[in-house]
């Protein structure tokens, strides 16, 4: 693929390192900040893959909104409490999970590498995208034409999520 290998390797290394930090660090605030870094690294990879709108959304939604939500919750729940001190899972599960994940990962890599990737002549070659005004414009036009129904449905989903989150998280009325 015609992407810059240097940037890809840098971002990939960053992402893998910080995601390991996400799952291994004990402090939830630390986990959260590692996650932000992973998100940024992903945004970089999106950008070098040509998905500029997704990259922007990644920063805005993930690194911005979702992470803020996480941090808020951690603060709300007082992360300093001892209940946050985790990491004493059953050793068998730890080893078993690690082994199985490693096996699966190897299988996946092997399968990906062995599978032939046919490259059909899709309509959206980088040149075509360039010609029709860049990635963002192409995505937007598709969103409001071909994908209008799922797009509208996501609004319903978001509304349901808002109502649901409020209903779950709010205190019961009458209980102070």
């Amino acid at each position, binding site marked *: 693929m015609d*992407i810059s290998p240097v940037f890809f390797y840098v971002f990939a290394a960053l992402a893998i390192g910080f995601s390991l930090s*996400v799952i291994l660090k004990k402090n939830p605030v630390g986990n959260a900040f590692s996650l932000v870094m*992973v998100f940024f690294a992903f945004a970089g990879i999106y950008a070098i893959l*040509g998905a500029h709108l997704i990259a922007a959304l990644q920063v805005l939604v993930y690194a911005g909104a979702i992470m803020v939500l996480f941090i808020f919750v951690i603060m709300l729940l007082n992360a300093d409490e001892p209940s946050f001190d985790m*990491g004493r*899972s059953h050793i068998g599960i730890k080893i078993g999970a690690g082994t199985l994940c490693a096996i699966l990962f190897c299988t996946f*890599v092997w399968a*990906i590498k062995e599978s032939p990737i046919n490259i059909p002549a899709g309509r*959206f070659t980088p040149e075509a995208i360039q010609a029709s005004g860049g990635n963002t414009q192409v995505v937007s036009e598709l969103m409001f034409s071909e994908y209008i129904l799922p797009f509208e449905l996501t609004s319903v989903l978001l509304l349901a999520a808002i109502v649901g989150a409020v209903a779950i998280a709010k205190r019961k009325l009458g209980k102070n």
Partner: protein
Amino acid sequence: MALSEFQVEPWLVLAFCSAIFFIGLAGLLIRRNILVILMCIELMLNAVNLTFVTFSKIHNHMGGQMSVFFIITVAAAESAVGLGLVIAMFRTVRSVDTDEIQLLKQ
């Protein structure tokens, strides 16, 4: 650009995606803090997103990017509800340890 002579093989990007995915999965299994578990889920979602975008790039097809857009929406909704649940759980058992909520236990 001089660097563009070096090409990244597509399988390498996909292998990177699965690496992140399985790191997330492993975290899901070994951590007991529900907040961290939610973060691991976000990790796995991101890995999948990147797979989509990679295939979009390989195939010159926009469907992958559209999917990512919708997955981001779903992820946002999911974390909103999930964090709401965390708050409700914390209010009930004063903890975010998944071992504290074992209501399904026999």
